[in-house]
């Protein structure tokens, strides 16, 4: 066993997902990218394998595995279909893991079994039309009314916000301002499809990449949320948010690893088979540079991600330097490697058949979603300012 597969279970998990990906995920990826549609049947199959609740305790229908296991699944799924993988991530990390770590037992028992099985599809609402990086600047508000809370506002860019062009996702963790400014201003709410005033604003169309995941604007118009749907306590959601952002960024980085790995594989194979000037492409120094540098960068990113995963306890907080660091490095690495793969394939790299043009489009999202690279640079520099000696 090694850093990437620390136990036999991790290795078995990787092999199981890889087998599933080869038979079920790869064959459908191009179609759903072109149609810009979410493959809900495939999602349910992933649920039947038990992957949707990978980090959730067995009591609530999960598998009770760790951050490394989550990274493995994201790397493997993303090698075939980063768009589908993003929908998986928004559900199983941003909703399921988030509720599993930050919710109470009543909420876990009520909601986790259905989201772990895939019966219900979940997402997380942080970003707004007017506030992304500046998350504390959000305008969605929740005001107490007796025991209940009344939510007003709109959320933007919500993955799994819609499951089709017209239909809302099932259940969401929504951050809202409950008064004041700064670190104590946010609270977290469970909002479910069917609550009066909660509706789909629009399904966002024409995305560059990750087109197999849906992205939506969600509208909250005097939505009445019962007290039992408050996650954590009033004013304490910033910590829950920061904690969940760590596993989010780690698994987003794992998506970049999948993109890079597949791109390298495609390059290696193509450069060995394609002949130019009477010899295989891989005899040319410039092509060798593309392949060798891509592989080395992929492995560097992979070591960083798995090392960070190994040290990330799911209920912990304060790992931001490296959870931002892995995404900062891997997002751009994945994009560059996919770019080189297109270059090595020449004209054939520019069309869908060899997959790398899709990976290249998908790779760009990872420099934006879950925190922009500039946000990571800002956070990391702030974290690192006192650490003048690194051990």
């Amino acid at each position, binding site marked *: 066993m090694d850093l990437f597969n620390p136990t036999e279970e991790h*290795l*078995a998990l990787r*092999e199981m997902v890889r087998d599933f990906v080869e038979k079920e995920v790869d064959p459908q990826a191009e179609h759903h990218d072109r149609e810009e549609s979410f493959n809900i049947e495939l999602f349910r199959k992933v649920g*039947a394998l*038990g992957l949707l609740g990978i980090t959730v305790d067995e009591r609530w229908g999960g*598998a009770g595995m760790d951050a490394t296991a989550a990274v493995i699944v994201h790397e493997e799924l993303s090698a075939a279909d980063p768009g589908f993988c993003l929908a998986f991530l928004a559900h199983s990390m941003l909703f399921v893991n988030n509720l599993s770590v930050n919710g109470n037992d009543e909420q876990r028992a009520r909601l986790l079994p259905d989201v772990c099985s895939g019966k219900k599809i979940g997402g997380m609402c942080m970003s707004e039309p007017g506030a992304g990086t500046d998350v504390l600047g959000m305008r969605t508000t929740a005001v107490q009314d007796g025991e209940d809370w009344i939510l007003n506002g709109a959320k933007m860019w919500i993955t799994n916000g819609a499951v089709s062009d017209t239909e809302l996702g099932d259940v969401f963790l929504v951050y809202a301002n409950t008064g004041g400014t700064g670190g104590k201003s946010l609270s977290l709410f469970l909002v479910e499809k069917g609550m009066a005033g909660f509706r789909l604003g629009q399904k966002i169309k024409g995305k560059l990449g990750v087109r197999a995941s849906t992205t939506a604007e969600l509208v909250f118009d005097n939505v009445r949320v019962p007290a039992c749907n408050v996650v954590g306590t009033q004013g304490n959601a910033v910590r829950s948010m920061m904690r969940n952002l760590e596993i989010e960024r780690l698994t987003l980085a794992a998506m970049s690893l999948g993109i890079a790995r597949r791109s390298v594989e495609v390059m290696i194979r193509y450069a060995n088979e394609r002949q130019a000037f009477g010899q295989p492409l891989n005899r040319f120094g410039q092509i060798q540079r593309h392949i060798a540098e891509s592989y080395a960068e992929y492995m560097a990113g992979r070591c960083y991600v798995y090392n960070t995963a190994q040290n990330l306890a799911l209920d912990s907080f304060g790992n931001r330097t490296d959870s931002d660091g892995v995404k900062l490095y891997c997002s751009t690495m994945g994009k560059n490697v996919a770019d080189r793969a297109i270059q090595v394939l020449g004209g054939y790299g520019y069309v869908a058949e060899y997959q790398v043009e899709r990976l290249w489009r998908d790779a760009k999202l990872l420099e934006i979603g879950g925190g922009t690279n500039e946000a990571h640079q800002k956070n990391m520099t702030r974290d690192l300012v006192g650490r003048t000696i690194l051990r």
Partner: protein
Amino acid sequence: MKILVTAKRVTDPNAKLVIDDDGSWIDDDVEYILNPFCENAVECALQLAADHDAETIAVGIGDEEVQRYIRQGALARGIDRGIHVEADEQELDSDLIAKILKALVEKESPDLVVLGKQAVDGDSNQVGQLLAEMLGWPQATFASDVKIEGDEVIVTREVDGGLEKLAVTLPAVITADLRLNDPRYASLAGIMKAKRKPLEELELDDLDLDGEEPKVRVVKLHEPTGRSAGVFVADVDELILKLTTEARVL
């Protein structure tokens, strides 16, 4: 009811095999998978077990690494428990494997033994048949459909001319063909459970087979001789000439 099923690891058919310098064996540093026909056998056992409330046991023979394939290939899919018989894989042939399985059948008294019709490494296609002979049990090989009805197993076999349907009385030996079923994926819960399922470790000694020798020995392994490159011929006359004088096939 009790069903014994085999779980053999084989070298990944997509892997490049490297032969040891002395030609005695292959370099062990290669990817292995569970034999695809054993996957069908495992799936068959699981489906029968679900319908007939049977206990299922997976058997693997070989060095310690074999345990991983018993656990992840069979137990993680739902087989109840495993048996690993420790043996030097270079010192095994179909006959000795059948003897080991016979000893396990005597120890466990299953009603049914399901094997892959062959393993995709050696492609021998012998063990199921030998085992049935040694046990004096009926056999149905190359099964593409299996049903238990009373004390009989109804097996559809793929034969050259089409399909053949056999009824064999229990206890019996069945070997699985690829079209028998679609092997399930191990679920994540299955993978986690597999760790805690019993896996008994036995030595040949425990089965009174110590010192038993294989009848077939691998003398030497070598790569297939490389084929020489093709040539273009100018016309049919030249082709016929070459086929006659060089290839000597006409």
